[in-house]
């Protein structure tokens, strides 16, 4: 990694495990290149901590190309940092200035307990998905694509919803820690396509029930989620989720 000339002060949330109290610790890093990603800067800091005989900072990361949804840092009061439409791993140090102080915290939500340092437990999202975020099909040969016509608008809209990587930035950004943008994306991608129709009502009822059970807050339409979403999922999906849910509740067979 090429050495640079940025010197930074990092204030990072350190927490041993779920049960202990955490606190902010201050670290200095020197020689940071503006071309490094934010996570690479953390790698440098961790190398430094290891060489000092200290515990490195635990943080989630995997693909480091913005599609896996693992990285989850709350940087200077915003999920995934100051730039729009990107994940933490796509954030580069050129977005900061030499001498900056950067505060890094984990996602904060009752439903996302901190496991260690900057790593939070996001299995609440998995349970919401398992409650209904799927389609049941008997697999076999894929049929001819032209046998189910789908309008370009619907295909585009479903694809835009399916771009959600489930990182949880929406929950982290929302003042209510609401998971509505995530759930709305997952419901929309199926509600818009023919394959999603058979389980359409049951899906939305179950996913919303699970969302409530996990202890996420309710939506007050501030728009913070969409503004911070690395995949720029639109608030229109939340409107659709509301329609789908209320419509399903009024008409489904579930009494």
């Amino acid at each position, binding site marked *: 990694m090429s050495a640079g000339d940025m010197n930074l002060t990092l204030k990072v949330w350190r927490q041993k495990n779920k049960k202990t109290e955490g606190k902010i610790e201050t670290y200095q890093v020197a020689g940071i290149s503006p071309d490094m990603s934010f996570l690479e800067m953390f790698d440098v800091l961790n190398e430094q901590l290891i060489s000092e005989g200290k515990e490195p900072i635990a943080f989630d990361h995997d693909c480091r190309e913005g599609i896996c949804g693992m990285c989850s840092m709350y940087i200077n*009061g*915003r999920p995934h940092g100051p730039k729009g439409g990107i994940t933490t791993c796509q954030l580069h140090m050129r977005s900061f200035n030499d001498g900056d102080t950067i505060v890094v915290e984990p996602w904060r939500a009752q439903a996302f307990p901190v496991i260690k340092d900057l790593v939070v437990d996001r299995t609440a999202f998995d349970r919401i998905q398992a409650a209904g975020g799927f389609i049941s099909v008997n697999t076999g040969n894929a049929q001819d694509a032209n046998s189910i016509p789908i309008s370009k608008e619907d295909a585009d809209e479903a694809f835009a919803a399916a771009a959600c990587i489930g990182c949880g930035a929406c929950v982290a950004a929302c*003042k*209510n*820690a609401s998971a509505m943008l995530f759930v709305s994306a997952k419901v929309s991608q199926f509600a818009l396509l023919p394959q999603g129709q058979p389980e359409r009502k049951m899906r939305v009822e179950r996913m919303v029930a699970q969302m409530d059970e996990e202890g996420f807050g309710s939506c*007050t339409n501030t*728009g913070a989620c969409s503004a911070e979403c690395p995949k720029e999922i639109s608030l229109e999906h*939340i409107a659709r989720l509301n*329609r789908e849910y209320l419509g399903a509740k009024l008409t489904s067979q579930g*009494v």
Partner: protein
Amino acid sequence: MSWLTQTLTSSIGKKLVMALTGLFLCSFLLVHMSGNLQLFKNDNGLAFNVYAVFMTTNPLVKTISYGLYAFILLHAFEGLYLAAQNRKARGNQRYVVYNGKANSSWFSRNMAILGTVLLVFIVVHMSNFWFEYKFGYVPYTQYEQSLATGEVTSTPFEGEIKGKMEEFVREESQTRVVIVKDLYRSVMEGFKNPLLVLFYVIAMFAVSFHLVHGFQSAFQTLGINHPKYNPLLNFLGAGVFGIIIPVGFALMPLYFFFKSM
């Protein structure tokens, strides 16, 4: 739990209750505004006082008004309950640095605070006028309106009448005589107090901010977010409920305050 209670107590259901009661309260503001515009009429309050009698005696209006009180309470307490629940959803450890203004407007994040200001305002406002009119002492005024020119003269009325209003036509002088409880005078007297006027004006800022977010948020909750209708909803939310309504209401105390100087 029946499916209906289960729906209305889900997170989306609670928002639905907030949206529907909120929109009902918005429609009330339109009625309240259009009725109260009669305060600006240059007739010593004749039209306004007659209107006040209608609004407090007509059985249909009375029925709707009880619904209104219930919806105000439901909207306020469900809102406060949701705010507490949403605060809890963040968890015990808050963010050390929180940059909310980077992604959302101040008023959208503080609907509960704005709403609490409005609840206090409603209590003060109702005890000022509604309570006084219904349970307190409001003197009577006798109006004489010339049927030919429409010109109105008024004198305090000391005697007793049945109910809130008596109206007859005096054939010999061709005048319409109305003896009515003079709420207009209470309004005029009340708004001589600069502190009360200031409180009303501040409350109207709260109305504006609360509705700029609340009106369009209610439609979003109802699932209405569509390029064909959003321009209209944005105009109604920001233009009508964000500017015209609160400015119109704020002008009423200001009008009486400056008139009394």
